[in-house]
């Protein structure tokens, strides 16, 4: 998986600095990652990685680490 592309998706959707995008970053842990930003993130990830996420995966994508795990499932 292209890690740089993943980080850019978070930077763009959450409007945060790339340095904040670590595996430990969880939704709701910063004000920028709310439900609205989450949907922008999903749109970014689907467009950049050319995948279509299941709704349950959209719900489960609760951290950067989790996003990597979920995306990897679609990119295998």
């Amino acid at each position, binding site marked *: 998986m292209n890690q740089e592309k993943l980080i850019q998706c978070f930077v763009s959707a959450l409007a945060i600095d790339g340095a904040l995008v670590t595996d430990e970053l969880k939704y709701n842990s910063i004000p920028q990652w709310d439900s609205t930003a989450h*949907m922008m993130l999903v749109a970014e990830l689907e467009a950049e990685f050319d995948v279509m996420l299941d*709704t349950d995966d959209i*719900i489960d994508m609760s951290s950067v680490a989790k996003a990597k795990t979920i995306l990897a499932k679609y990119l295998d």
Partner: protein
Amino acid sequence: MNSDKPHWPPTFERYGVTLTPIEPEHLEMVRQWRNSPSIQQFMLDQREISEAQQQAWYSGLADDSSRAYWLIMFKEQPIGVASILAIDKTVGTGEPGLYIYPEQYRSNIVPFCVAFALNDMAFFELGLKRLDAIVLSHNSAALRFNIKCGYQQLGENSLGQIAMSLEPQSYIAARDPLARFIRY
């Protein structure tokens, strides 16, 4: 027809969620949710609700078609409460509200599923023409959420409350790009 079930408000299922009338056995769970700091902090009325007050509130809902409260069901679990208050079918207005209790369902697509079900109910089942909302100015997530759902921001009063309104056309324009991610 099952005469034991209330006819108001109607049960509504869409976007993977079901809005179902609140039954007496749900009252204590709903009261606990409503009194929890995570929910209470965003309510216009932040007073603690007693069992007696909860019962009185519920009794007052019977046959009151100007107010509708639903339990939100998701994956067959109750997760929160949705409402439309001040329903005026003559003018075509109402005041929606919702809260979701489990933290894992608050900051992703689930609030949109619930809001879309509630708005579809309001506009396309009840026939309302405009929804009015009041959001506390410090509740930035709710403000962003409502704007993403198509609400227009009208202004802020001296109490730090922001008035917003939503009409069907702007709602549909906002809903459709997001609803494509709801794949149930």
